[in-house]
């Protein structure tokens, strides 16, 4: 059964230094609040897994929480580079970052395999691509029936997955609607899953075949309205496209980035205080 607790408590209890952590959410429902809390608690040496590192990992990398990144597309969508990611890879600031690079199809299959309790995923991928030359964990397997050689990749099985969702009921059952990405698979592939939600309700009112994660498959459910910002929660908020653009100059230099997280993340007690501070700044 999921415990319904604060995000602070969930991160304290379920995320350890050195863990492999997946914060998933494909453009929609990105668990930004969890990233902030990991920074506030100074978690270290994390191996971060995520198809699209996005701002949520640019933050963690720049804040010095990560030692390794497993990913498949590393940009600020529609804007440009992730400057903290690039600085870590190219200049080793604030510490060197090992990268392990895949394609989307590979990582999506690797999450499916992880959720399925399998050690590897099989997919038709990478023929003619240079990626296997620079990523030694991309191997191959031969079909015992046709002789076809297919890609074999290790499944993703995080210590902790954090996702954001629209609603939970009071038992901790979670409903996800709209663009689902790989979140269900990421949650089921993990040893411990934390879900931040917009709302806790008496009755989920889930359609019969909706994407529901039962409470007993989760470690914790945390009420964090708006916790995906600048991503969004379908039915609750809109994507803050402006913030993605504003992030570019903030993250561009070490100084402006550090000043920003010192003020907005390390300088706030939790995500609701962060939201208030951000709103106050934007009102200026």
């Amino acid at each position, binding site marked *: 059964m999921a415990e319904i607790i604060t995000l602070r408590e969930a991160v304290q209890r379920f995320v350890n230094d050195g863990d492999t952590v997946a914060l998933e959410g*494909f*453009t*929609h429902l990105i668990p930004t609040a969890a990233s902030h809390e990991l920074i506030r608690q100074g978690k270290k040496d994390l191996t971060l897994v995520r*198809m699209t590192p996005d701002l949520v990992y640019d933050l963690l990398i720049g804040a010095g929480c990560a030692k390794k990144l497993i*990913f*498949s*597309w*590393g*940009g600020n*969508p*529609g*804007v440009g*580079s992730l400057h903290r990611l*690039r600085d870590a*890879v*190219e200049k080793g600031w604030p510490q060197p970052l090992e990268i392990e*690079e*895949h*394609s*989307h*199809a590979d990582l*999506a*299959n690797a*999450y*499916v395999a992880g959720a399925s309790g399998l050690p590897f995923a099989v*997919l*038709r*991928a*990478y*023929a*003619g*691509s*240079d*990626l296997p030359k*620079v990523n030694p964990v991309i191997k191959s397997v031969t079909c015992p029936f046709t002789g*076809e*050689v297919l890609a074999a990749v290790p499944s993703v099985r995080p210590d902790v997955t954090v996702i954001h969702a629209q609603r939970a009921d009071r038992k901790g059952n979670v409903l996800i609607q*709209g*663009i*689902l*990405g*790989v979140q*269900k*698979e990421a949650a089921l592939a993990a040893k411990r899953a934390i879900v931040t939600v917009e709302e806790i309700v008496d009755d989920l009112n889930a359609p019969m075949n909706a*994407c529901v994660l039962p409470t007993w498959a989760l470690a914790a459910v945390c009420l964090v309205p708006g916790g995906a910002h600048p991503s*969004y929660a*379908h039915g609750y908020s*809109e*994507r803050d*496209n*402006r913030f993605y*653009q504003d992030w570019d100059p903030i993250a561009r230099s070490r100084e402006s980035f550090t000043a920003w997280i010192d003020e907005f993340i390390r300088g706030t007690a939790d995500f609701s205080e962060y939201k208030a501070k951000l709103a106050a700044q934007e009102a200026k």
Partner: protein
Amino acid sequence: MTYSTNEMMTVAAARRLGNGSVCFVGIGLPSKAANLARLTHAPEVVLIYESGPIGAKPSVLPLSIGDGELAETADTVVPTGEIFRYWLQGGRIDVGFLGAAQVDKYGNINTTVIGDYHKPKVRLPGAGGAPEIAGSAKKVLIILKQSHRTFVDKLAFITSVGHGEGGDHRKRLGLPGAGPVAIITDLCIMEPEAGTHEFVVTALHPGVTREQVIENTGWQIRFADQLAVTEAPTETELVALRDLEARTAAAHGQLGGEE
């Protein structure tokens, strides 16, 4: 009506999509061209975004691959794993629409690094969905602005394969799809030559000279014997495109990203 070279590129790309064809689209130019096709000659084109929407019919261009309007207007929204497994790898995508940072004469694509992988001059975003779209879509269209730096003789890194080393290399790699069938730029259209699978110019956009193309291509570009001139964008096409962009600007306060 007068038009820009970018508009010519988008219109030329949109025209390649047949009505009813099932199209795997990325954000930026591919999404713009595919939606223009849907709003003009191909109302039944099926747009699939890797985030999960199948049959999306957005009224404005999405700024992200996971915009809410894609989900709201889709026939169904499935998990991302299913998109890659059942729909792309399952062989159900007619056209994969790809952008690129760099392309070579065989339509191979680099979106990973300029320079050495471990000591990159420029670190690009990486693979995303492209390697498997390039492998498994029944055919691939590449759309990007042409320049000496983007159309290169030798890629530093092949992220997504086109025709590999040319000839029957793609077949030898065992790839199910036909690979890139056209590169559409702001200057011209290139198509693979029979046999060699080297991309040659088969149509120049109106007013573009061979010299301009040669100047903006990093390899010794060749021209088809039957060199056509692209039909200029019609008023219908331009009006549809500009309306789409105006709606997008009004909705988002910005244009649908170029990449």
